[in-house]
């Protein structure tokens, strides 16, 4: 199945990616080829096949007790590109609105 340029742009937007113009046609062709290949699944008889899950069915909740391990804000933010006083710094999210 072939995917259109507009669809590539739409899913790139959803995935928060920018596909540069010079890579767009190639990406479109590669995705189309892979989608064509995965269509082989339509030949597989899936009658009676439900979705599998892999977590243990009887997984109990653990006791809600601290175990002494603690990640303090300074260490948690130490690997961030920008942080201050134990907070992650980001550009403004909300415009200044008049009250």
């Amino acid at each position: 199945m072939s995917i259109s340029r507009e669809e590539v742009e739409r899913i790139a937007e959803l995935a928060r990616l920018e596909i540069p113009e010079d890579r767009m046609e190639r990406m479109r062709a590669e995705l189309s080829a892979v989608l064509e290949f995965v269509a082989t699944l339509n030949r597989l008889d899936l009658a009676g096949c439900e979705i599998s899950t892999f977590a243990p069915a009887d997984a109990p909740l653990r006791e809600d007790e601290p175990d002494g391990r603690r990640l303090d804000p300074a260490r948690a933010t130490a690997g961030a590109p920008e942080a201050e006083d134990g907070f992650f710094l980001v550009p403004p999210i909300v415009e200044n609105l008049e009250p």
Partner: protein
Amino acid sequence: MSATELWRRSAARNAAEVRAGAVKAADVVESGWEGPARIWEADVHAVVHEDGPARAAGARAAGSGALAGVPVLVKDNLCTTDYPTTCGSRILAGWRSPYDATVIRRLREAGAVVAGKGNMDEFAMGSSTEFSCYGPTRNPYDLNRVPGGSSGGPAAAVAYGLVSLALGSDTGGSVRQPAAFCGVFGLKPTYGRLSRYGLVAFGSSLDQVGIFARHAGDIALAYSALAGPDRFDATTRLDPAPDVSGWAQGVKGLRFGWPQNLWKAGVASEVVEGLEQAASWLEKAGATRVTFDFLPGEYAVATYYLVATAEASSNLARFDGVRYGFRHPDTPDVRALYTRTRSAGFGPEVQRRFLLGTYALSAGYYDAYYLTAQKARTRIRREYQEAFARCDLMLMPAAPTTAFRLGEKTEDPLEMYLSDIFTIGANLAGIPGLTVPVGIGKGGLPLAVQLLGPEDGEGALLRAGRAVEVRGEIQRLEASHESEFAWPTRR
């Protein structure tokens, strides 16, 4: 044996001598760096983060456990406090984890020393270790060829002798395929047997930490030290892990499946010769061959590239320039922060998979792609269950070819995906698989086979792996009076 030759030994032997006080942990750890690394590392490029003082500190803390003083190279997607963890990606440049992965913690508790971080395809997406921001790793048996992937660095390091043990991760064959290309053992355990806590997630329902070694016994040793429930990973199985201490007990009475329809076409003749060799050795050792047809691997590949990419597009949404590593310098608003950071920070293969996964999950396509793939996964899982009603394990290729050339498949994503055709099924079904080296082929490249077992079948896999290893050693001894591991030579 002089201290500088300790790297040639098995992990089990070195650990026993460290415990007995016969050798020093620091000598075991450094012998790989002082010997083989000087010959190989500049060209092979298996290691992306190394740190002499961190190794020395590890050796001092080694203690007297099952892996006392054993150096272990770990894939760059396992969180370590003493080395950066960057998943072979620009987007995590320089990032250090504030905690150790559970498997790293258990390694240290067993006395092992983290020897450094191994190269990998970016976020474990690839089958050749060419998609790393640090550049490719090369195969020590032929520097013009790939080591396989995505755990190519750990596999190559075990093959050339830097370490006797290494950890990788296996989402669709990323331990078993590079183990085959580099001629070493590689185990992907049953899903839920090794904790994924601190393994940077790719496809959470498929990911397992795996083990590389040159000897079946060393895989058993490491598995025993690492496997078992973990309160930090809710998908670990709660009952005790299978006992693999019988790895040397032989294969008398074991039935191995021989799904020969799978290699009628599209599999290199050398690979088929390796399979025949392993099968005849297993029969000589007392196992029985059971021939049957099995579901072709194309269905598994198609299922995998929907399930894995969907899970990856969700898991890797966390890399957005806020909490870890790299941030694009020009980010006027949050939207630009996300989009510019991700577009500049992730490589082309990772971006391609995000798009595929996002598409499969998006409104209007979810039923046709993701849901269909989930059902196909159940069908594939049943196929394996039916097969294991007839045999104790299955003998399969680990890959359709021996190690391919650098650049051979980077231009054709589908071609690269199909190199995982024999390994992907085990991840979809949650079952264990073991790559077993068979010898060196006529072209000078390692030949290997893959054994698959039912859930918790690790014990039988290792018994069969050991049986093949023993026959290989006997053959090498007869040929050259050289019973050691088949080391690569420079060419």
